[in-house]
């Protein structure tokens, strides 16, 4: 007999949610393993990786730099507004650099990449799935993991730290320029403040985050794309779920990073 009432429905929902999370986690683990095996067996074409590097990395540079430039300006201006006449202005250098390097650079770049690359991967593979192109690939003896998944994941792993490094640089530069024009803070004073609280580890922390995001985004995107079903509507549903899943994953990873790596 099916349980009735609020409590019964609650437990059924929890059970469904848990089994769905476990199913996704299991499939993601298997996907990651299979991609690893394909890489170790040298089954991934260099030409495919280079093509994906162009699409995922090079074509994302402009949007990432624009987002980073705006982040730098906003951080600098809001910081300046909060600190006016209370804290020495040179602290602004540290606020901008640390905010951009530790948080804004990696996270905002990852969010941009979810929209530009993650959604694209899921929609592309989802369309291939529902139009039997994945079946066609299998029918001619090719492994979709080797041909489609691995090049995208590898390209993203290579691109993400580079893009975050560029975003950090751009955010700091525009933050400094903004502080100069709006607060009258010279670049020497800005960098004096920045150096005062800077640890070399911060950059490593930023790039570690980038690397973890660079693995998570394409893995989820590929996983959601390959399990798409139900025609055009299914592709839309899959892509939406994928974007939500990727965004939440980034925020959860972001929340886990400080207790794991900053204390």
């Amino acid at each position, binding site marked *: 007999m099916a349980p009735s009432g609020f409590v019964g429905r609650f437990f059924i929902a929890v059970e469904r949610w848990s089994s769905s999370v476990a199913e996704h986690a299991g499939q993601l683990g298997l996907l990651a393993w299979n991609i690893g095996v394909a890489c170790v067996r040298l089954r991934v074409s260099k030409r495919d990786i280079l093509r994906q590097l162009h699409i995922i990395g090079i074509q994302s540079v402009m949007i990432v730099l624009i987002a980073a430039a705006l982040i730098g300006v906003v951080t600098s201006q809001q910081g300046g507004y909060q600190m006016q006449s209370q804290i020495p202005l040179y602290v602004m250098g540290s606020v901008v650099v640390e905010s951009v390097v530790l948080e804004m650079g990696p996270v905002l770049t990852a969010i941009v990449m979810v929209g530009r690359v993650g959604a694209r991967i899921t929609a592309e593979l989802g369309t*291939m799935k529902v*139009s*039997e192109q994945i*079946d*066609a690939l*299998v*029918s*001619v*003896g090719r492994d979709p993991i080797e041909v489609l998944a691995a090049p995208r994941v590898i390209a993203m792993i290579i691109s993400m730290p580079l893009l975050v490094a560029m975003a950090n640089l751009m955010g700091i530069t525009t933050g400094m320029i903004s502080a100069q024009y709006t607060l009258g803070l010279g670049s020497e004073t800005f960098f004096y403040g920045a150096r005062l609280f800077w640890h070399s580890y911060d950059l490593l922390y930023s790039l570690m985050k980038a690397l973890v995001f660079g693995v998570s985004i394409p893995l989820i995107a590929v996983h959601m794309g390959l399990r798409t079903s139900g025609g055009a509507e299914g592709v839309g549903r899959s892509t939406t779920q994928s974007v939500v899943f990727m965004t939440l994953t980034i925020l959860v990873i972001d929340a886990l990073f400080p207790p794991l790596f900053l204390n």
Partner: protein
Amino acid sequence: MSVAGNGSGAAIEYRNVFKAFDLPVLSGVTLSVEPGEMFALFGPSGTGKSVLLKTTIALVTPDRGDVIVGGESVYFGGRDALERIRRMVGFVFQYAALFDSLTVFENVEIGIPEESLKRMRANEVAHRVSESLELVNLDPSQVLGKLPSELSGGMKKRVGIARAIAGRPEILLWDEPTTGLDPVNTAAIERLITQLSDELKVTSLLVTHDIEGGLEMCDRVAMLEGGRLRFCGLPEDFRASKDPVVNAFTDRKAATAALDTLEIT
């Protein structure tokens, strides 16, 4: 349940294949296709014809049962056996399933097994691709550099067939190859199926709704209904069958009458 063929030395043998998604689709299908034979599979929509075809190369995994291709088990023979089976089989998809981002040349080239590609020189690969396109009556010089989006529906189907035969398979599986085509293109594709089966000496298993075409082209035919084999035999026996479900597929009046009495999904 009728069993087609004797199964010994069969090119393809389906052994008690069961498959359910939300509802049962295949409920114990046993059928064999002999080497060199042209075999057509008919049946109402949603009765599992394409699913059965896809179990031949493990594009869909059955819940129970097995498929034997060229004497090797698809599901219990291991990865190497499955790879050998996939090299042996060419699959023509209902809507061609061409890779959108690849040119016609690349789409056909991908049909050549990787092992063969490694051994072949570039000019041999180009020759094989051109030859495959010529076999499906396409002019390579006109289409090689085009993307699938630049081709008509009939041309896409032909490129899909060229990809399936590029690896010189021993078995061709055709999943409703004439669906969505006008009568002229349908006739052209049907002629092509017969021509390719003769020229390449392949075993063909054809899933189709074009009953007349299938009865004319094929050595034997079978009919799936409700996930089970309803008929299996010679085309003339199919035409002469007294089974109302079979009749509904050969006679429009019988089909209209069947609507009232049969549960056809």
